[in-house]
């Protein structure tokens, strides 16, 4: 029983804080020090968005995600859309097109049935749009005051095509880093409605299913090295995770990262970095250099990849670290976020 004992306690944190759900270092420590040692087994994947499991000779991608978003409805989507697209996209990052979803609803006593209906309808429509079937589900109700109206958990499975092997460990120096479009949109859209902030322009979430985009990329070459959807923790967290898992360095050109003007302005006001803001319909790809032009062209030909851009490359220098070349010609480290980003005082 001592074999799996956690190598170090959760540092200085006798209780869970919000940052443990923020997708950064604290989240990873929770997994590393508590969950992985407790659950550890050969199928457990902790370096990819979805686990790859074999069943009856087939290679399946298998993933689960829970959604506790406030508010339930926001510009460009709802918790129902997120619950589908979040899991569908985790599967897509393994190269799999999602086939079946499970759907668990945790409802708070007192929430209007109209709200539940709207969420369920949104979830159903998102599933149809993503080409996935909700095959099973569950409902629980918790006492008033013990939830934010509606929480949803979804799990999904899909088949991984032969010859596709997407893992950060496959990244090698020279790989080209491509992002599928403008970053930071979803997080700013949520902040604008959650906190009642107005930025002059309505910013809509980029929430979308990425299975089709991934298929069009794999049609160019099955030899993509890794895909990641930069959700919580944003692009910076995804790049840091890939750098850490692959042992390569990553260099990005700061001015090449597409950031829409309203997102840049909102972030400037709040003192946030768009690189750390969540996305829900974007992916970052590490592609062999010789395939990069063709993959980029295929991405730009797809509606969800129209804004795709090369933002950098994997390098031998500074292994495990992400470095940005600034617009002025300097360099800086792009760190793993600790927890959630905090708006600054002035």
């Amino acid at each position, binding site marked *: 029983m001592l074999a799996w004992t956690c190598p170090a306690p959760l540092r200085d944190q006798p209780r869970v804080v919000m940052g443990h759900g*923020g997708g950064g270092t604290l989240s990873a420590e929770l997994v590393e020090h508590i969950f992985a040692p407790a659950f550890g087994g050969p199928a457990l994947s902790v370096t990819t*968005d979805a686990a790859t499991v074999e069943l009856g000779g087939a290679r399946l991608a298998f993933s689960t995600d829970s959604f506790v978003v406030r508010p339930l409805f926001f510009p460009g989507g709802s918790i129902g859309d997120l619950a589908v697209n*979040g899991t569908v996209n985790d599967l897509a990052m393994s190269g799999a097109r999602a086939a079946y979803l499970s759907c668990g609803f945790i409802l708070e006593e007192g929430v209007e049935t109209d709200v539940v209906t709207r969420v369920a309808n949104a979830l159903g429509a998102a599933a149809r749009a993503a080409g996935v079937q909700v095959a099973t589900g569950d409902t629980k109700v918790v006492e008033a005051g013990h939830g934010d109206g509606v929480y949803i958990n979804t799990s999904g499975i899909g088949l991984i095509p032969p010859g596709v092997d997407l893992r950060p460990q496959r990244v090698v120096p020279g790989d080209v880093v491509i992002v599928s479009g403008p970053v930071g949109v979803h997080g700013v859209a949520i902040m604008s409605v959650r906190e009642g902030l107005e930025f002059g322009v309505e910013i809509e979430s980029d929430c979308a299913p990425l299975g089709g985009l991934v298929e069009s990329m794999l049609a160019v070459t099955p030899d993509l090295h890794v895909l990641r959807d930069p959700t*919580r923790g944003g692009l910076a967290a995804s790049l840091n995770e890939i750098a850490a898992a692959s042992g390569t360095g990553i260099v990005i050109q700061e001015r090449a990262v597409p950031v829409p003007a309203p997102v840049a302005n909102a972030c400037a006001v709040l003192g946030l970095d768009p690189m750390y803001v969540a996305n829900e319909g974007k992916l970052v790809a590490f592609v062999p250099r010789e395939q990069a032009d063709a993959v980029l062209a295929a991405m730009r030909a797809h509606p969800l990849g129209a804004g795709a851009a090369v933002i950098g490359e994997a390098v031998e220098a500074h292994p495990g670290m992400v470095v940005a070349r600034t*617009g002025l010609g300097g360099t*800086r480290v792009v760190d793993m976020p600790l927890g959630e980003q905090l708006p600054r005082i*002035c």
Partner: protein
Amino acid sequence: MKYIDEFQDPELARRLLDEIRATVTRPWALMEVCGGQTHTIIRHGIDQLLPPEVELIHGPGCPVCVTPLEVIDKALEIASRPGVIFCSFGDMLRVPGTGRDLFQVRGQGGDVRVVYSPLDALRIAEQNPDREVVFFGIGFETTAPPNAMTVYQARKLGIRNFSLLVSHVRVPPAIEAIMNSPDCRVQGFLAAGHVCSVMGTEEYPELAERHRVPIVVTGFEPLDILEGVRRTVLQLERGEHTVENAYPRAVLPEGNPAARAMLDDVFEVTDRAWRGIGVIPDSGWRLSERYREYDAEQRFSVEGIDTREPAECRSGEVLQGLLKPHECEAFGTTCTPRSPLGATMVSSEGACAAYYLYRRLDLGTPSPKSPSVKSTALEGSSVV
């Protein structure tokens, strides 16, 4: 984005850098007063691009960093009390007090809320008449006016369950203290543009004259910083020491009269302790007599707090420009954003945080042990 891009244009930056290189003939030490400027400098690598003769020294202008530990401990104590809703700007939540921070108070059941405006806190007070709502009023001349306005509004609306935990500070006395220090190496100042947008430039000519030091009011975008450096170096090379406004798009000589009137009404000047530096005469504000009932320190008894500053933290020297963050022995070893010894490492405007976050590669500071796991496959929640 166009607006931001205009002030980050690489070509214009190159021209300004060329001018600075052509101007400078000997070493000069300039202090950027504001932590926001420090972050722009380090984040964009401006210090790497300047000629070696121009040294930028980081000043005390980080509102989070200079808030005394004792005040943070008072905040933690008040926020822990049942019946209290404690409201703060986000970046105060991770600042360590003696033994814990506001996030941990929230994890222990305290009702700690992040707001984007002090008026949001007042709204929370209106909506929760049976609770005491406290807003953490810290910062420089930039944040003081809206906090003053909130107390003014509370009184006007007759809202009694609202109070302010005040630790406001003023920049000119800090500049005075830095210049009076026997160890001072500063030869020119990039003054904080946001502060001057409120207070104007009237406070500076006498300082510049007395200490024979150029003061250039400077903004926060990369080109603003380079222009501030260019003008300061030009003055130094010419032997001049005047006040210049290199941020005219935001700063008028008279500042913002309405904001200043609000400050004069609600606050009065007082001596104030700065974390890591000590008490600087006349360097802060407290609520004036007619608003004293809104003072959280008076409303809640928070005496007898056992405040213990980590002995190995040298942030006071960093804040005075006497030490570069990476020259501290604890930097990147026992002191990181994950387990900071002082506020300069945790604040989003702190100089130590800037060096740690952006400059580790050049400094050879080891990366913290990267988590060997990716959280998503086992993640518990997806907040956004």
